[in-house]
């Protein structure tokens, strides 16, 4: 009596009542399919967010004035980030791949009669490399543009569409707060991170901004200020080192000791990434748990049917025992039967779940990711459900006394 014979016997028993076996399996199929589909959607969402955040620029560290929570309200003021801080960081810090000073200001931007409020960003040529933008058409802002304080503008792909609605913007004039600028380039799309669009930007030379656009908002204590300094570290291993060097220089230049709270936020993309990833992982686990409940309910369905089946087949069990089947053999027969049910259900459920994930991807809502570990996990969970819910009915069958089982009507 080996396991193959056991499997053959259980297939025959299951085939004897195809409708019932099918309906019983349906509980497992739906449970496993839900498990696979939901986990794949969750994994897909995590990957989407990860790849988009990484698309913002790898090894990126951003430095900006901290919002001063304690002094919120009238007169609340944050410590300004000076242009000289940018110069000190650029000069004193090793292991930098690039550094990009940025000043951002809201302005009225117009092309002909098409006018609206945009955030206009003053940048240096390093901005493109540090923030991982590529130029789709024309050119990016150059050092010459900055030193000449040229009235040129580079548009993000979404900003170009908003302003020009389909016209080719290259070489055309737009006005920013009434002053006209020539469009010299359009950026390739980077897509949205889900929180803000990286394509809705309007870039001008930083020097042009200081002299023509930002005015008094860009000067504090007689010095030029910046909204953000973006720094990209030479490689992922030095990100933390660069952060501590930046913090050191900021404390030094602003006359702060180690005991003072640093009035700047210095954060890496990785930190933002790990926060996002932990949120989506929690969400994925939550979805998986919900699907697990339906699988559990499917398991109860199997147990129910197996108990009925044991009762119906009492005489068969009695006969098998009368011709020499031991308890353990009967126990195995019924456990193999439930495991067979749940494993076939599991395989069909995996196929169905993967198909659902595929359909979700086709709708374009989210790119799902059916990973092998989700499949294996679902498969083994289904087998476990079969084993767990099969033991009690099998035990009942094995415990039948042959003499009574044979007399059962």
């Amino acid at each position, binding site marked *: *009596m080996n396991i193959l014979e056991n499997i053959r016997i259980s297939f025959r028993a299951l085939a004897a009542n195809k409708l019932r076996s099918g309906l019983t399996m349906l509980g497992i199929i739906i449970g496993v399919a839900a498990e696979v589909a939901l986990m794949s959607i969750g994994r897909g969402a995590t990957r989407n967010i990860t790849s988009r955040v990484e698309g913002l620029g790898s090894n990126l560290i951003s430095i900006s004035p901290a919002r001063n929570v304690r002094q919120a309200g009238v007169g609340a003021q944050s410590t300004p980030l000076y242009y000289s801080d940018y110069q000190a960081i650029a000069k004193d810090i090793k292991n930098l791949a690039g550094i990009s000073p940025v000043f951002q200001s809201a302005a009225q931007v117009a092309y002909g009669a098409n006018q609206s409020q945009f955030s206009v960003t003053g940048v240096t040529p390093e901005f493109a490399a540090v923030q991982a933008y590529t130029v789709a058409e024309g050119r990016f802002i150059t050092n010459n543009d900055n030193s000449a304080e040229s009235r040129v503008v580079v548009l993000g792909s979404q900003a170009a569409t908003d302003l020009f609605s389909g016209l080719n913007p290259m070489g055309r004039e737009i006005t920013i707060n009434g002053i006209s600028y020539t469009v010299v380039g359009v950026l390739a799309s980077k897509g949205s991170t889900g929180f803000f669009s990286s394509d809705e930007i309007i870039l001008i030379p930083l020097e042009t901004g200081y002299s023509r656009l930002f005015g008094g908002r860009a000067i504090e204590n007689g010095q030029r200020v910046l909204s953000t300094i973006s720094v990209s570290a030479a490689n992922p291993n030095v990100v933390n080192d660069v952060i501590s060097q930046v913090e050191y220089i900021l404390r030094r230049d602003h006359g702060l000791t180690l005991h003072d709270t640093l009035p700047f936020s210095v954060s890496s993309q990785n930190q933002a990434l790990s926060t996002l990833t932990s949120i989506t992982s929690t969400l994925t686990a939550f979805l998986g748990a919900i699907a697990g409940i339906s699988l559990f309910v499917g398991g109860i369905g199997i147990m129910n049917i197996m108990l009925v089946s044991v009762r119906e087949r009492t005489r068969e069990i009695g*006969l098998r025992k*009368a011709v020499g089947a031991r308890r*353990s*053999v009967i126990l195995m027969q019924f456990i193999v039967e439930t495991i067979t049910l749940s494993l076939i259900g599991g395989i069909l459920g995996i196929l169905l779940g993967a198909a659902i994930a595929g359909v979700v991807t086709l709708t374009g809502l989210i790119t799902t990711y059916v990973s092998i570990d989700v499949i294996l996990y679902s498969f083994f969970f289904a087998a476990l459900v079969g084993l767990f819910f099969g033991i009690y009915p099998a035990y009942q069958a094995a415990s039948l006394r042959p003499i009574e089982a044979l007399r059962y009507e």
Partner: protein
Amino acid sequence: MIELENVTKVYRLGQNKVVALDDINLNIQAGEMVAIMGPSGSGKSTLMAILGCLDIPTKGMYRLEGQPVEKLNDNQLAQVRSRKVGFVFQQFNLLPRTNALENVMLPLLYDGVHGKARAEKAKAALEIVGLGDRIHHRPNQLSGGEQQRVAIARALVNDPTILLADEPTGNLDTKTGDEIIGLFQKLHEEHGQTVVYVTHDAFIARHTQRIIRLVDGKIISDVSVEHPLKAGTPRPEEVLVS
């Protein structure tokens, strides 16, 4: 070969104790053919269950080929059943949707006999009962008599020490029943098979060498039949009536 000494079997039915067998002493020799008769509730089936090691006595001793059975555990009893006992039931008890060959192979499966030997032994047993040409038929494709022959082949396939049949003709018409009794006689005469069967039918009982009568769990008579009937003997009216 079969020795029962002071065997008593008591069942509990809720609060009540039912004495199914009351101090039975019985010996059956190898090669005997015995009929057990008695009214309903006389303990015939209980006696068969004990002889077939489906159950053990409450008191007393049962030795099968010298081996005391009453001390065996469930697994040991299962092994004795698979090697020494062949059962034939009134209801045939064949597995549905399973062909004759596979039904007959079942005891060999549980005794650990391997693939080829299993099929060969089962075929041989089916040939003995005259179904060599129907081995792939399923129970629902066979007549009642043929189904009982498959059940007999299943009982024979392990070369049992003892062939036990509980009302083997009870579900068959008299003609088919006589054929089955003829088969038992053939097994007894040509193969020296020990056969014990329970019957209500005195005519069928008279085909054996020995008739044991049970009433209320006690043996009230145990007689030899001087001239056992040959299978195929016309059934006289008066025997039918008794």
